[in-house]
C-alpha cells in the first residue's frame, strides 16, 4: 500500500516510513518531539490510500524507524500505525 503511494508520488523514496495517527493533534505532538530530537521528518497530508483522515501524518527516514517508535512510545504519543518499506 505504502510503496504504491510513494510510486504514485513519483518520489522513488523507497526508504521512507509513514506514521499514521488517529488525529492531527497527535501528529503535531509527534512532530514537536521529533524536532527536538533532530530526527529528519516532515508532516504530509494523509495519503488517501492509507487513511480517510483529513489531516496530516509524518513521513520519516526508515532507518530511524526503531528510534521513532521508541520515542513515540516513551512519550505516550498514541498512533494508529507505522508503515515502512
Amino acid at each position, binding site marked *: 500500500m505504502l510503496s504504491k503511494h510513494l510510486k504514485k508520488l513519483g518520489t522513488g523514496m523507497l526508504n521512507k516510513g509513514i506514521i499514521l495517527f*488517529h*488525529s*492531527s*493533534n*497527535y*501528529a*503535531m*505532538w509527534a*512532530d*514537536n518531539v521529533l524536532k527536538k530530537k533532530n530526527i529528519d521528518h516532515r*508532516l*504530509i*497530508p*494523509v495519503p488517501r490510500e492509507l487513511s*480517510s*483522515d*483529513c*489531516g*496530516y501524518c509524518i513521513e520519516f527516514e526508515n532507518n530511524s524507524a526503531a528510534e521513532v517508535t521508541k520515542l513515540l512510545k516513551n512519550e*505516550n504519543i*498514541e498512533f494508529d500505525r507505522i508503515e515502512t518499506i
Partner: protein
Amino acid sequence: MNIGSKLSKTNLVYFDNSATSFPKPPAVVDAVVEYMTQAGGNPGRSGHRLAEEAGEIVFLARKALASFFGIKNPMNVVFGPNATDAVNTALKGILNKGDHVITTHLEHNCVMRPLNRLSGDGIIDISVADGDEIGIVSANEIGSLLKPSTKVVVINHVSNVTGVIQPVREIGKMCRSKGVILIVDGAQSGGIVPVNIADDFIDIFAFTGHKALYGPTGTGGMIISDDFDHKILRTLKEGGTGSISDKIEQPDFLPDKLESGTMNVAGIAGLLKGIEFINSLPEGVNSALSHKLTLQKYFIEKASKKVEGFKSYSQTGSPGITSFRMEGFTASDITQQLSDRFNIMSRQGLHCAPSAHQKIGTYPEGTVRFSFSVFSTIAEIDYAIEALKKIRNRNA
C-alpha cells in the same frame, strides 16, 4: 515590560481585570495578528503548510498549558470558548440521574446555573457547604456532606467577588480518597495562584484565557487530570474534528472528543504568548501573585484610612480582588462616577455571583470591585483613592 509598569499610554486606569485583563502584553497582540496574516490555516484539517503552522501553534499552546497547570499529557488540554463552557461540559457530561453534587456559596453563575438546571430537571440533588463567615470551606465540611450518591464536588477556586481562595488541595485530597470527582472553576485562579492539577488532586480544571493568562477573549477550556477516565464524560457537542473522518461516530479520544468544529486559533495563538509572558516573570505566576497581593493590601489599608465610609468586603491576602462599598453611595453610582469623571474602570453589582453576595451580606445591592493585573501600579491606586475621596466629598 515589567510588573507594575503601566502599559497603556492613555490616562485610563483599568481595575476590572477579573472581568477581562486589559491591556494585553504586546506579544499577545502580535501573535493574533501574525496568525491572521502569516499562518492562518485550519489546524488538523487540511494538509498544507499554513494548516500545519496553525496546528503547531495549537499544540504548543496545549503543551504550555499542560506544563503550566501540572499535567503530563498535552492531549488532556481541551480548548473551548471559556470556563463557563468547560464547567457545563464537565457537569452535564458527567452527572446522571440520582447523582449528588456538593458545592459552595461562593460559586459564580457558571456553576450555579448549570447545577440549578440539572436540579430543576430532576437529575441531581445539591448540597451547598456554608463555609466560615467569608465563605471558605474545609475538607471536613465537604466531607460531612458526602452521601453514597455524591459524584462530584464543584468549587470556585478563587472568588470573583471577594478574592477568597479555597483550600483546593485539602478538598481534592479528601475527594480523591472517597472516589468523588473534583471539578474546579479556575476562571479567577489560573494565572493568579499556582495551580498543580496532580498535586492538588483536581480531576477537571476549567480555565479561561482572557483574564490572568492575558490571552484574548474567547479562549479557555478544561485541563483534565492525567488520571481521569474521560470515557465517563458524555459529549454535549459533536461534529467535525479532522479525525476518523470516515465515521459518523464522534472520536472517543482526547482532545478531539470534546473539540468539534474549528477552534479559535487566533485567540489560542495569543493565549500561548500570554502564558509565555507569565512564565517569563522572574518567579512566574508567583511574581504576578505577589505584585497583586501588595497592591491589594496597599489599597485596602490606604482607602480604609483615607476614604470616609469605605468598607472592604475582601480581606488582605486576596489576590488582587477587592469588593467594597462607600457609605451613602450605591455601587453603580461609584462605578459610574469613577468612569465618567476619573477614567477609572471598575465593576459594580453582583458579578454574576448572587449567592456569593448573599453569603457576604451585600445582596442585592452588590459592591464595587477593583481587580488588579500585573500592569497595575501603586500610582494608579493612589489616583483611585483620591477619586473616591472626591466622590465622597461630592466635589464636582
